[in-house]
């Protein structure tokens, strides 16, 4: 059962990685504006008239 010590330590490390990912997300302004990015992704690059479907 000693393996439990190792497993729990590893799983905690993985969890800490997720926590760090969350911190990174907050730091990189992802929680500052929760509206604009959703609209921004709809913008197409300038292009010619689309052919009719």
């Amino acid at each position: 059962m000693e393996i439990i010590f190792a497993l729990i330590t590893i799983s905690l490390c993985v969890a800490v990685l997720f926590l760090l990912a969350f911190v990174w997300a907050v730091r990189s302004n992802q929680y500052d504006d929760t509206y604009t990015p959703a609209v921004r992704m709809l913008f197409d690059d300038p292009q010619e008239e689309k052919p009719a479907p």
Partner: protein
Amino acid sequence: MNTTAAPTRTATACAHCGDDCPDEPIRLSAKPGLSFCCQGCKAVYELLDANNLCQYYAFGEERPGQKIKPVELPGRFDYLDADSVQAQLLSFRSPELARLTLHLPQMHCASCIYLLEHLYQLDAGVTEARVNFLRKEISLGYRPAETSLKAVVTLLASLGYEPQITLAELGAQPHRGSRRLYYQLGLAGFCFGNVMLLAFPDYLSFTDELAHEFGRFFGYLSLLLALPVLLYAAQGFYRSAWAGLRQRYINLDFPISLGLTSLFAVSSYEVLTQHGPGYFDSFTGLVFFMLIGQWVQQRTYDALRFDRDFTSYFPVAVTLLTADGEKSVSVKELRVGQRIRVRNQEVIPADAMLMRGSGQIDYSFVTGESVPVAKVAGEVVYAGGRQVGEAVELEVVREVSQGYLTQLWNNPAFHKAEKQTLETYANKVGRYFVAATLLIAAGAILYWYPRDEQMMWRAFTSVLVIACPCALSLATPFALGSALTVFGRHRFFLKNAAVAETLGRATTIVFDKTGTLTDVRRSAVEYCGPVLTEREQQAVAAVVAQSTHPLSLRLLQELPASTLSVTDFVEVPGQGLRGVVGGVLVKVGSAAFVGADADLVTAETSAAPAQGLNLGQSIEQSAGEPETNATAADTTDNLQSRVYLSLAGDLHGCYFFRNVYRQELGPVLADLGRRYRLAVLSGDNDSEQDRLRELFGPEAELRFRQTPQQKLDYVAALKARGETVVMVGDGLNDAGALQQADAGIALTDTLTNFSPACDAILDAGSFGRLGSFLRFTQDCLQVVLATFVLSFVYNGLGLGLAVQGRFTPIVSAILMPISSLSVMVFATLLVRYAAYRRQL
């Protein structure tokens, strides 16, 4: 008396802004299918078309453009070239790159985001443009070598997105919302989840062996995980409790801090002495849930600002006239005796004497009155007005901070710190809670001491642990947080949840008159004089169609459409219009301009000296004045301006523009009058007294000729009598009273426009619901109380177990999340139900 009927018109919508086009729309030669209302809109369309940005018209709203107002004047943005201004505006600056954030209140749809983020296609010097739509901000980067700040701002203004660059915004960095709460939430959630997993073996009987084998390891690990929660995530509660204590005041955070501390201490003791697994899962869970409560409560309206003072409205720089010519200087550097030039659409920054030019001062931000006031050379013009029309020269008579209006901000009401000792229900209950907890804990000691010493400690610590009023602290945030959402849906925006509670306890409601009770957008036009023929009406319409003065625009709506051509058109700012239509000279304007005969004019001239004595009065009473014997008795009100008309040199008649009370006013006041004391503070004279008396009922207090300072004092006096005062106002002249009141509600027609510092912003369209809103806040308080009862049940249950010494970690682990979650759900659902019943 003849009221001209509004003609029906069929107009095509402008392809850019969606406004009605004139009868002969402006067309684009390349695309004859599109029509435009003005040259400005057409120019923007052409610019976008040339740069392949016509996708702008494909998103969101059908015609997203901003109506281009003809305010472009050379020199308008010259101050942006000044080094001192740039130093304050730019957040980063090097020869290769400059960065800044601008506030664009006109932003309103997806198309705006598209256009603004493609700014680099219009100006190659722009390197990046990122929009934050909720804040209505744009972060710009540009290469100073290729373009200038002035060029970028001018480009934005020409597209219809003129940035709001004001004194207050100077030097303001792109403000980030507090991220601390996100970090705290993330950390607490992480620790809670992991501690709960580690505590799992304790919950189940068949894992006894496991618990035995790894109990110590799991315990230490839990302690390790709980430590950052105590030190970082729970910081806010300790700070708040400490701040309360320093003011000799016990708020709800005090028992919370007490509970959290004892929870942590007891658990650490148990783990370190290997007595048991501790309550670390409960501890981290409590903090996590309470942080969620804070997060829910902290719903903010990013685009709205509740803390604006006059500096958010005053310009950054002003054109100073010196011996060497014009110079842009900061408003703060203005000194008495200096000469300044104020152009069309610019704000007058300091009280000043008009030296040259004719002033048309729009005081709508100050008083709510939308019709500009005419001023001639020699008169004193008060700060805060916006000049409409030609550029004028002024001599400063008082420094900015000493102005008639700005002096208000020296009042202590504006300097008091955020009300820390707010007497909310939660804090009041919290205090009793502490007392009750300590009593019960002492009782437990007394009971167990002669019987079982070990049990005594157990019971004592258990009581302190269960006493953490977690559920209690969640009741208010969740109830009022969902109330804020309901209000937001009806365009009533509260600064924070505490405002909802204050509104629910209001006893007196004080109203401003002009702009608050009256509807500035809906003035009634009445014509007095010999009936005009259709042809004459058309002639007048043709003349007023040439002008952009608000009264002209309003008059035009009343008159039949006209295709007559006007020759020799002259607009004398502040006076009137003159033009020849079909050989007949048509003059529209003030009595003196038109040449109205003596008996009609007497009242006019006799009223004139009274103006200027009192700012509130002189501003609120616009051009036209009291009674003329020619008019019927029922027009004895000052909510009117008048425009005289002469045809072929003879005075023909007179148009009255009367501000009317808001349509919903009657029902709203009837509703409120039954439940609250009402009062009106008007800067105007008392000619409206009878009508207001009728609307407000016999008990209401009506005060007239109130200066901004008097309004503030009146509210302060009410508060001193123990009333909870809600002030409803709209202009800068109400700012003092709004600040002084327990809850100040600013009424606004355009949400993104300036509104003075206040606790809540109400869209004028929702004014009719004011009664329901206030009833709803009372419902919410009852919901909070009901939720308190529910959480007391849980606390009582826990306490019952605790004094018997049967409060084990597993009981805690079950009771804690159940109580928290049920309180959250209960509060939210009840508020939703109350909103449904109030039809909100």
